[in-house]
Every structure is written in structure tokens, then in C-alpha cells.
């Protein structure tokens, strides 16, 4: 029985098979973690503003009129599944699975990321139709400061995914590229964590206390 693979640096690992890529990843991956955690503090500030602004509705539409839980449920499932597929894409690269499998998982992740964005933008448009625009009240300003910020991160992740796909095609599977894929996967998982915070605090919290 083999022992569990040892981890030489935090988070996702390339392992001993890709020893040179693994070593090259060590420092940048830790640096990327530091970036993620500072991004987390930024999100935390936006959460704090939202919590303090929850009652500042200034007679405008509140959470009960604006939030559509069915759409939020669909978005949650999509984002969660994309977090699984980006992990499977990482594993496909790590274990040199056939190219078709790598392309499949990256493709599925991209499609899921884009459909998440489409649903989210449709929600924002439905909210705007009911008078829920950022300048209406402090509550709505805080909402639009936080939730689209997460959407912007997802959009960045999608662009990053496309750029990596092009690089994969042009340069093949180099060490450098593998270490970039590791960071993309970390980023993507991180966005899923933020989304859990958003459904718990923004949507359910808003409906409970707003």
C-alpha cells in the first residue's frame, strides 16, 4: 500500500512526477496564496459594508422584492460543478491523460463559467427592471459593489482559461504552463469559496434581516 503523496508546497500539488515543474511552482504558488488572501480581505471589506448597509434601503426595493432564489440555486450548482471540473482538468494534466480529456474538462469549465455569468447578468437586469439600481440606496450600492465584483473575478478566470488554452496549443505542455494551470485551479476554487459567503451573507442574510 502506497502512502499518500507528500505535499511540498501548500494547496494543489504537481507531485514528484513533474519534479522540475513542481520545484518551479513552489515559490510562485505560495505567492499566489498571498494574493488570494489579500483578495479575501478586499472581499471581506465589501461584506462588512453590505452587512452595515442592509437596513439602508431608503424606501427603495429590498431583498424580498429583488432576489430570485431559484436563479441563485442554479448559479450555485453551476459554480460548484465548475470547481470540480477545473480540478479534474488539473488532474488530467498532472497524470498526462489523453489530450481529448484535458480539452474536455477545460471546455466544460469554461462553458460552466460563462453560463454562470449569463445567469448572473440576467439577475442584475431583472433587478434593474424592478428599480434595483446601484444609485437607488446604500443597500443596493453595497450589493452592486460586492456581487458583481465576484462576477468580474469569474470573468477574469474565463479569460485566463482561454489564454491558457491558446498557450497549451502553441507551446505544448511545458513546466511553466503546468504551474499556471495550478494557479488557475486555486483561483477557481477560491471563487467558489467566496460564492458560498455570498449566498450565505448576501442572499440568505439579506432575506433574513433585510
Amino acid at each position: 500500500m502506497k502512502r499518500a503523496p507528500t505535499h511540498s508546497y501548500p494547496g494543489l500539488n504537481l507531485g514528484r512526477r513533474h519534479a522540475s515543474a513542481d520545484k518551479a511552482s513552489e515559490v510562485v504558488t505560495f505567492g499566489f496564496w498571498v494574493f488570494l488572501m489579500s483578495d479575501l480581505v478586499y472581499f471581506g471589506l465589501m461584506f462588512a459594508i453590505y452587512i452595515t448597509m442592509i437596513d439602508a434601503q431608503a424606501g427603495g426595493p429590498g431583498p424580498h422584492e429583488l432576489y430570485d432564489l431559484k436563479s441563485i440555486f442554479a448559479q450555485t450548482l453551476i459554480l460548484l460543478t465548475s470547481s470540480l471540473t477545473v480540478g479534474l482538468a488539473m488532474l488530467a494534466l498532472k497524470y498526462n491523460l489523453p489530450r481529448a480529456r484535458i480539452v474536455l474538462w477545460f471546455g466544460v469549465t469554461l462553458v460552466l463559467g460563462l453560463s454562470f455569468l449569463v445567469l448572473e447578468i440576467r439577475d442584475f437586469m431583472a433587478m434593474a427592471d424592478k428599480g434595483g439600481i446601484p444609485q437607488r440606496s446604500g443597500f443596493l450600492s453595497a450589493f452592486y459593489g460586492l456581487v458583481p465584483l465576484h462576477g468580474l473575478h469569474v470573468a477574469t478566470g474565463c479569460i485566463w482559461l482561454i489564454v491558457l488554452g491558446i498557450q497549451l496549443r502553441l507551446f505544448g505542455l511545458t513546466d511553466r504552463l503546468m504551474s499556471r494551470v495550478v494557479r488557475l485551479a486555486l483561483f477557481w476554487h477560491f471563487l467558489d469559496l467566496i460564492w458560498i459567503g455570498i449566498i450565505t451573507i448576501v442572499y440568505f442574510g439579506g432575506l433574513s434581516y433585510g
Partner: protein
Amino acid sequence: MDKRSEMHRRERRRYIVGYGGSLLLTLAVFTIAYKYGIQTKGVYLSIALLGLAQLIVQLVYFLHIDRRRSSREDLDLVLFSTLVLLIIILGTVWIMGNLAVRMHTYPM
């Protein structure tokens, strides 16, 4: 079975377990919200606790953060950032809430 595909299988299983756990917790949260409404404090508390559980499941199964010696450095980073975050959020909520009470915009 060779060592490589054995390791692959194990890592893939880890992702799938994490996904299944997160899926169950998500379904639980939305079922509670749908069945009991979201108005009472007890319901919101259970939703918040399930959300916290899901954060931990994803940190362990997707981001591979645990108490093993090799990833401890990273656990330190995450814990320290969480501490900063809690100070920011709780501090803001405390001060602004207190201000709202003093300005009589919010009932005691």
C-alpha cells in the same frame, strides 16, 4: 495496477467526495430555506452553520489544506488572513451598529 494510476484514482476520488459533500450541504441549505422560510433566527443560524461547514469541506477536499506538516505553513497564512478578516468585519459591524443605535435609527 501501477503506482501512477493508483495515485490518480485516489486524487480523483478526493475531488468527487468533496463535490458530493458540497452538493449535499448546498441542497440542505436551499431545502431548509424553501421549507421553513428564512425569517426566523434559528433557521438563519442553521443556514450559516451549513455554509461554514461547506467552506471547510472545500478547503480540505478542493484546496488540500489540512493539518499535515507540509501544508501547515499555508494553514498559518489562511488562519492569519481569517483573523484579519474577522477583526475587519466584526469591528465594522460593531462600530456602525453602535453608531446606528446612538443615532436612534435602529431600535435597541
